[in-house]
């Protein structure tokens, strides 16, 4: 077990190192900081809603840019190893295919975590600069956004295990959108007269990660409205959501590993 962890950690560190060289990531970081600065400007123009705007834009930036970065990195994660044939020298070592998939994912999760942390620091620094108190709700929202990013990364890796980056990107984006809009799609389908449409939509949404759970601010939990600007979710909700994310990540990586196990590297 320790040896297996050691191999995965070696791959994770190498993946982290590789991803840290991608210049686009630094561009995204600048974009997120810019969005936060823009939020400050918007806040100044609003009628006493500086804190609301800053928090909303900051958290949306973490969720959206974090998820898009996860898709961008994830769809190339396995594909580029096969295309560049770097996988030949790795898989011929005493490493199982699932260790390779998990190790690569962990490396990507590491770089995404650093990015989310930097996005959050940028947001919190600007909140502090504006004299806005940093509430527990913000910390909880950042934690949920981080889980969302890691889940989206697993979705992208899953598609990368059998598809090209272009198709994987389309599939992952589609799943991201579906997951984010789950309650809205469900509500729309429930208004349909066709029982077939309602049933199919319910089943289809069951096999899509419910990503809206991670961006719950402005929606309701157990009938009660929740907002990062006021009454937010409990720690129990956060922990349950983290468990939900980890279950999806585990499941997706398991299927990706099973697919990857059967692949020929020519």
């Amino acid at each position, binding site marked *: 077990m320790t*040896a297996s962890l*050691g*191999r995965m*950690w*070696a*791959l994770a560190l*190498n993946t982290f*190192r*590789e991803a840290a*060289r991608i210049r686009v990531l630094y561009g995204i970081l600048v974009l997120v900081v810019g969005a936060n600065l823009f939020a400050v400007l918007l806040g100044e123009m609003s009628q006493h809603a500086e804190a609301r705007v800053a928090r909303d834009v900051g958290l949306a930036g973490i969720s959206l840019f974090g998820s898009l970065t996860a898709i961008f990195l994830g769809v190339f994660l396995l594909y580029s190893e096969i295309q*560049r*044939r*770097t*996988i*030949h*020298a*790795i*898989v*011929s*070592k*005493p*490493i*199982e295919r699932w260790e390779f998939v998990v190790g690569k994912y962990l490396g990507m999760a590491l770089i995404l975590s650093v990015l989310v942390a930097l996005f959050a620091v940028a947001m919190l620094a600007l909140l502090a600069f504006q004299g806005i108190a940093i509430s527990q709700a913000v910390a909880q929202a950042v934690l949920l956004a981080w889980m969302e990013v890691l889940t989206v990364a697993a979705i992208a890796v899953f598609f990368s295990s059998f598809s090209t980056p272009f198709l994987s990107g389309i599939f992952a984006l589609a799943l991201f959108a579906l997951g984010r809009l789950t309650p809205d799609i469900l509500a729309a389908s429930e208004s349909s007269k066709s029982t077939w449409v309602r049933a199919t939509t319910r089943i289809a949404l069951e096999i899509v990660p419910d990503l809206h759970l991670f961006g719950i601010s402005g929606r309701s939990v157990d009938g009660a409205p929740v907002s990062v600007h006021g009454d937010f979710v409990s720690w129990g909700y956060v922990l349950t959501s983290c468990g939900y994310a980890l279950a999806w990540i585990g499941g997706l990586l398991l299927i990706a590993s099973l697919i990857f196990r*059967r692949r*020929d*590297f*020519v």
Partner: protein
Amino acid sequence: MSDEPPVIEVADLQKTYRTPFRRRKVVALRGINVLVRRGEIFGFLGPNGAGKTTTIRILMGLIAATGGTAKIFGETVPSRAARQRLGFLPEQPYFYDYLTVGELCDLAGRLFGVDAATRKRRADELIARVGLDRARTQNLKKFSKGMMQRAGLAQALMNDPDLVVLDEPMSGLDPIGRKEVRDLILELRERGKTVFFSSHILTDVEAISDRVAIVARGQVRAVGAPHELVGHTQLGVDVSLRLPEADPDAAAKSLAGDLDASAVRRADRQLTLALAGDADVDALLARGRELGARVLAVTPRFETLEDLFLRRIAEVDDPATTTPASAPRAEAAS
């Protein structure tokens, strides 16, 4: 007779690919049989597309066979336990080009589960051994093809493997680099390692291999020690003569007689004739003496590995003469 299993045992190995859209069958291996014993250098020889790399990739667990069996150290591949004991240099190796050679070796060592102190020591030794000491601080991105090959050799040996599998290890190397790789392979054998390598550079294979297998169109066409394979068939005799000072052209013309132009080589007054196996050498020498020529050398010409290789490949193109090598059990007895 030891009960130890062969290091590599491949029996009736088959691989058929299917093209992505039309699902057309492409047969890469048609039943490869190979048996490699402990401590030997085994050369896997064949033209491009013969099935060498496909066989190696199956052994390394990179692709799955569609038929037959392949075992390393008695373990059916893909086997993590077997891979723990082997080192592999892929054909035209691609590594993470942002790493230095030291970092590449360290990564390989970590994947083999080698502890940090041993990784450092082995990496230092191997980098020096493959002659990359002066390029230690450079990223692999800046490496030439030959340097990349050397880096690949270093990472392949990080676990001090019992079996070293090298796919075209001399490819892209200059003559000095090729000699260094040959020396390294011989050194590995001296240390009790088994080396299985593929190549299409015949001289390299002939010079260092204990046994070779010639592969063509997905089948082994000949297997054995190079001297066993090529040493018994006398193809002819090469006769070298010093032509007389007076009218050497006439003497050369007379001695060459009806010989094909390709069998006659002349450099100033030195004439070399490649005679067929059944040629009357005594009569030629007598005629030479009559013409005032001096005999420099009479050398029997045996079949070389290149001759055998070309003959076997030519036979593949003529199905009537195609004779795949015997089954692995028979090879084991050879």
